[in-house]
């Protein structure tokens, strides 16, 4: 489904990603963990076309992002990529001038030209799925952080993407609210939704994900099934990171 090969990302003279290769199969959930500044979020943003890349390639089905992909010239391609690959932000980024329901239906109606009733029906189903159907008419500012993030997930789902990228979806939330959100993501994993999740929650990565990647210093230093990575870390960076994470 997603094949990243030798991805290089630079900010000026600074190398953020130094040749990362990573594959996610359909129906698979990949977790990316690792110390801050390791390039985890940047990686996700590259896959969604929010950042230009300087080397390697990102293959999403039959779509391909390359260093020469130009956001203004190839906007149609980027739009295709983003329709297939949804993105959930750490800060939710709900549209404050739209109601919860409108947040969900805006893109299906405007981008795909779906009939509003059809989009609304699906949106209500999704809101029910994240436990917020009662809030359909509410404004985003009237919701708690956890509720906002669940709406954001529903909003992404409403575009029916093949894969969803989560960028530290619970970092801005307290543990209770984080739990609500992680449960929603866990449910999606059970429904075999393809996902890449950048997370600080080790328990989530261990229990929900099929594959764990450890990013550090712009490299994918170690990856494998969670049981193996957590149970028998091979790389020194992984070991020290897990020690640090265990203290929290």
């Amino acid at each position, binding site marked *: 489904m997603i094949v990243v090969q030798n991805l290089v990302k630079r900010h000026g003279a600074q190398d953020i990603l130094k040749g990362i290769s990573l594959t996610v199969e359909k129906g698979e959930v990949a977790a990316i963990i690792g110390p801050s500044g390791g390039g985890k979020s940047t990686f996700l943003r590259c896959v*969604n*076309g*929010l950042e230009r890349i300087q080397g390697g390639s990102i293959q999403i089905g039959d779509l391909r992002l390359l260093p020469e992909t130009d956001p*203004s010239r190839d*906007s149609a391609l*980027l*739009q295709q990529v*983003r*329709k297939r690959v*949804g*993105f959930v*932000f750490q*800060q939710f*980024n*709900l*549209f*404050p*001038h739209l109601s919860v329901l409108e947040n969900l239906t*805006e*893109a299906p109606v*405007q*981008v*795909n030209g779906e009939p509003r009733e059809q989009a609304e029906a699906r949106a209500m189903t999704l809101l029910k799925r994240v436990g917020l159907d009662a809030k359909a008419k509410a*404004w*985003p*500012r009237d919701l708690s952080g956890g509720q906002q993030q669940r709406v954001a997930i529903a*909003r*992404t789902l409403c*575009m029916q993407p093949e894969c969803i990228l989560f960028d530290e979806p619970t970092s801005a939330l307290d543990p209770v609210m984080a739990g609500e959100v992680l449960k929603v993501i866990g449910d999606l994993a059970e429904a075999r939704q393809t996902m890449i999740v950048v997370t600080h929650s080790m328990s989530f990565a261990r229990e929900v994900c099929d594959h764990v990647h450890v990013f550090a210093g712009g490299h994918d230093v170690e990856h494998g099934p969670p049981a193996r990575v957590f149970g028998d870390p091979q790389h020194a960076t992984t070991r020290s990171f897990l020690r640090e994470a265990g203290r929290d």
Partner: protein
Amino acid sequence: MRRAALAHVFAFLLYLSGALGGVAAAEDALEAARARGALRWGADQEGGAPFIYPSEQDQSVLIGFEVEMAENLTRALGVKVEFQQSQWDALPSMLQANKVDLIMNGYEWMPDRVAAMETSIPYYVYALQLMVNKEGPIQTWEQLRSLKPDGSKWRFGVLSGSAAEEYLADFAATVQTASYDGVTDSMREVETGKLDATLQDTPIANFYQKDFPRLRFAEAPVAEGYYVVYARKGDKALIAAVNDAIIGMYRSGELKRIYSRYGMWDDQQKVLGAIIDSGRFYNVAAALEAAPAEASADPATGAPAAAPVEEAPPTATEKAIEYAKLLSAAAGMTVALSAISFPLAIGLGLLIAVGRLYGPTWVRMPLTAYVEFLRGTPLMLQLYFIFYFLPELGLTIPAFPTAIIGLAINYSAYESEIYRAGLQAIPPGQMEAALSLGMSKPMALRRIIVPQAFRIVIPPVVNDFIAMFKDTSVCSVVTIVELTKRFSVLSRNNVSDLVVLMGLTGLLYLLMSYPMSLLARRIEKQLGNEVRV
């Protein structure tokens, strides 16, 4: 009267147009006027009595010796007169831009004007009259050569840029001059004792004498000069016809009758007769020959002046109602200007802001230049450019569209900056969220970013809208008569009703802007509720 406060601007524009070779009158003005059936006469009613001013009986009717002269002149040419209001100092530009055919408005004979325009023979000999307070010490010009008894300089008020101001420059050691925009302002100040004296053109001094009973003329008038008619360079046929008409009016005694009605006939006007009879002014011999011989009656013994018909002066209430009507009509113009140009400015401003923030470099650079240029130059200059200069390049835009375009373009620069700030205040995550849902950039702007920015910018935008109501007054430079201009004309010509006029004008502005404030507050409240995150 006044000399151009904006002389430099005009000089520059005229120079530019000359340099571009667009000066020549495209057609003969006299022929064009005959084809049209009307001659366009440019003057400023704000310059006031006795030249051209609203009648006390009916403020919507213009009277004045120049109004009567214009009627006589055009009758002699076989056409109607079409009065075109213009700011006094902008008249040469009006002529240049072919928006009027003639200037006749107390314009003095001056060498630089004669070089730039076609010039008629004089139609009036003016001089400068010293006016002092009856209780004041000034009796002679000689006194003014030394300081006041208390050792300070004599305080004079003069019309800004007038010949009087120039004349007093010679007395700089002992006289201190203050410049006023209206002719009556300094007379009032002499009455109250704030000033010691004022120096005025004789027609003005004679006419307003009755309104300022505490003023006295000191000595005979000094520094004679001529009022002449100016036409576009090259319109020799028109000027020749005007000369014929002036000579005819002088010889038939009509000129004397008109001047007498306004208390302007004096011994100095005998100079006119000398000029006409000798033909030694501006080589008008040819015109003299063409003049009808039987019209050469002695002007000094011409028919006695017809006494002006004395109508009962209107009551204070009648006058106030009349003022209210005229001012309300002018306020309608103010509303029309703002209501049409502001939406244009907002639309244009939004496009500019989006272009500057999200467009490619080749779009950004010219837009930045556009904004900086328009913010960095005065609205008035921009209006001048459109109205007086573009005709030189073959693009003639009438006054009202000029005002609309000028205001819209000028304000678009300010609105775009407000929008830019508003757009920048939207967190970048909003754009990313929209893009990640598959929206194109234009759609994300239209559906997500701009609607949010719109709510942020409402207060400053409404503020600008209210400011525009007041800025429309600048449009008087392109001959638009809106509320401030109407007030200005009425107040200069009805000195004693200043308070009523100010009150009415202020009230009208409030009536226009206050509902806007209320509306803005409501929109703000409604939209503001939705936005707070």
